[in-house]
C-alpha cells in the first residue's frame, strides 16, 4: 500500500490521511524517514486492536505465499522498485483502507483479501473526493 506517496493529492482533496502499522513508535519514525514523508501521521498499534475493529483479517498460508500472491507481489515490486521489508508484529495480519466521514460513517472500505491485495491510490482518491462532496 502506497497511499502516502500521494498524500499531497489527498490533502488537496480535503481529506486527512493517517497510516497505521504494527510495531513501536521507532518503526513509525523509520517508515517516515525511509519514505521521506515528514509530517505524515503514522500511528502504531502493537496490540492490533484497530485492525480488529476495522475488520481486517488474518491470512492463511496460501493468502500470504500462494503462487498468485507471489506473482502479483513480484510484478508490483518490479514495477515500483519497492520490495517488502521485514514485517513487524503479526506476519499474517492483513491491512486495508477505510474512509471515515465526519459523522463516523464509513463510505469506503477496501480490506485486503490476501497479501497482494491493495486498493489503488486512484480508487481511494476518487472515493475520498466523493466523501468530501457528500459531507
Amino acid at each position, binding site marked *: *500500500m502506497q*497511499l*502516502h506517496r500521494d498524500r499531497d493529492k*489527498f490533502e488537496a482533496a*480535503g*481529506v*486527512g*490521511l*493517517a*497510516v*497505521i*502499522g*504494527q*510495531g*513501536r*513508535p521507532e518503526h*513509525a*519514525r523509520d517508515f517516515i524517514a525511509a519514505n521521506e514523508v515528514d509530517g505524515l*501521521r*503514522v*500511528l*502504531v*498499534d502493537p496490540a492490533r*486492536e*484497530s*485492525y480488529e*475493529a*476495522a*475488520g481486517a*483479517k*488474518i*491470512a492463511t*498460508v496460501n*493468502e500470504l505465499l500462494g503462487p498468485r500472491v507471489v506473482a502479483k507481489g513480484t510484478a508490483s515490486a518490479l514495477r515500483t522498485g*519497492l*520490495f*517488502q*521489508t*521485514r*514485517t*513487524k508484529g503479526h506476519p*499474517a495480519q*492483513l*491491512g*486495508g*483502507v*477505510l*474512509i*471515515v*466521514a*465526519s459523522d*463516523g*460513517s*464509513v*463510505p469506503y*472500505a477496501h480490506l*485486503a483479501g490476501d497479501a497482494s491485495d491493495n486498493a489503488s491510490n486512484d480508487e*481511494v482518491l476518487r472515493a*475520498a473526493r466523493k466523501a*468530501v462532496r457528500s459531507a
Partner: protein
Amino acid sequence: MPLGASTGRQHTRPPDRADALADLVLQDADGKDVRLGDLWSGRPVVLAWLRHYG
C-alpha cells in the same frame, strides 16, 4: 501454523460506522497518544492499515 497464519480462510468485516474505532488511542511516531475519533472530527479521513512498513 507458520507465520501465525489462520488455519481457515477468514472473511474481512468492513464496518458501516467507525464507532468501534473512535475511542481507540494509539501512539504516533513521537510516542504521543492519538485518539482515532479525533482524526475525523473535522473532515473525512483516509485510514490505511499497513501489513508491513516496506
